[in-house]
């Protein structure tokens, strides 16, 4: 497949992720949207890594592939922290909807 196809898939995933984050009222869906955005970036990194791997002076495309591995770890760490925080919110408010946690306002 050509580079353009990968970039198109990744752009679509990015857009779906952003729309999910903006429209969903349940925080678990919002976190899923964030994961989609992170994985969109990952597809880009791997695809560009393969592209530059075939070019002279591209360093074998290793930078992109390394970045993708680190992004997977980042996404896992972020999900762990975020879910712990959501659990805490659920215990405090008995709900996982951001609109029902509204102690802080003007």
């Amino acid at each position, binding site marked *: 497949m050509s580079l353009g196809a990968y970039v198109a898939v990744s752009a679509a995933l990015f857009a779906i992720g952003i729309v999910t984050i903006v429209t969903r009222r349940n925080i678990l869906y919002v976190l899923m949207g964030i994961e989609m955005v*992170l994985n969109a970036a990952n597809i*880009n990194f791997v*695809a*560009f890594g393969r592209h530059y791997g075939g070019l002279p002076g591209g360093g074998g495309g290793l930078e*992109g592939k390394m970045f993708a591995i680190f992004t997977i770890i980042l996404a896992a760490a972020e999900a762990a922290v975020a879910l712990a*925080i959501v659990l805490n919110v659920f215990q*405090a408010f008995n709900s996982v909807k951001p609109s029902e946690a509204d102690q*802080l306002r003007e």
Partner: protein
Amino acid sequence: MSNYLQSLPSIAPEIAMTVLLCAVLVVDLLLKGRDSRKVGYLTLGGLGVVAWLLLGQWGELGSAGAAKRVFGMIDIDRFSTFFKLFTVGSLAAVVLFVLLDRRERRHGIGEYYLLLLGAGLGIFFMVSTSNLLLLMLGLELLSLASYSLAGFHKGDKRSAEAAMKYVVFGGLSAGVMLYGISLLYGITGTIDLTEMASGPHSLAAQFSSGPVPVAVAIVLVLAGFAYKVSVVPFHFWTPDVYEGAPTPVTSFLAVASKAAGFAALLRFVGKLFLVDGADGAVQQYGARIGALLAILSALTMTLGNLAALRQSSMKRMLAYSSIAHAGYVLMGMATMESSGWNAAMFYLAAYYLMNLGAFGFVLYFESVTGSDDIASLKGLGAKALWVTVPMVVFLVSLTGLPPTVGFTGKYMLFVAGVDNGLLWLSLVMALNSVVSLFYYFRIVKALFLAEPAERSMPGQSALAGSIFVLAVLTVLFGLYIAPLQAWCDASVESLRLGAG
């Protein structure tokens, strides 16, 4: 291999931070959560060692050409050391705030220090790298620790809500920034900022062939930074998180975390667009980035100040004031000239001092009145002059009136703006300072111009002492500006020269 071993002394401060972090973890486990104050004292001592190492490094970097890049990705230069020193200083102040917070538990809070040190280590890497992978890792280390810190008071609904809002906005902006970085990698074939500016597929070459993808990538990355330093339109999380988080954590987020974001932003823009002898395409794009920053700066300071006018909670008011201050710093950056960047660095240093002091004051009175409402301060001004008089100094400095460091910083920004064709922005800043006078002096009015109230004041002499020291520094650096100015000059100079 020997090359790597020879490079190790250059990252001695980072190694010391890591060792300290592990020591704090082990000691906390050995104490089994009893008497966490001991962990706090250990943290303070360790931070002292890190500061000593950093001061040694600053001295070594004084000779020309001493700045270097180690491990191919960490820049050891005065710019990074400057921010690391201030980070250690503010971390020490925050640890002190935790130790002196009368409302905080005495036991089982060892993780507090662990998370603060983790965030500090993230800042260390974030401010000293031109490699976007390491930048991202440092940023996430800082962010993940900050999310947990914001929700540290587990039973507290406000703390839980603050952490949730922080993690959602933070995750979104990290994703957007990462996507921008992936595009930058696709465009240039490298994740190193220096190579991006000059490599075989340099940004300059790509500007001329296809400006749109480059613009999209850079705007996405800038959005990630804008969230970290709470610039309009990425500021929505700031008031809620600052209000809900425990006050020492708020002071950390407002001071160390925000300044680290600015440091990384300065390096990102500087490496790409402030290159000596850059060709026309880069300069043209740099000018456009400058114009974008100028507009964001005007919006940020105006919105921050106007929103601060109608707040009744001190923490919320200081949150909006910190948004406004981000606008002032951006103004220095927007000049895209060394003089403006010096002013921005100077203002950041001023910002450290006066905001730490102001949050110390909030902490002091929270444990007296149990709330951070401005109304609850009524008539308490004469009760604790050792704290209220320093607070007046901080407020004078935040407004930007002499003889304080805030005035000097604003004056430098104003001059830099006028000199570099941003007269309109300088005028906007001057008007904004007048607006800020109104809300800052509501605190003074509540303290001193109301009927004296009867209330017993618990003794908090250590906290009062640290606030007093910060106030003395605020005035001292305002009157005697040469050393701080020289440090800022040396830092920006090392950024321009670059390393390796």
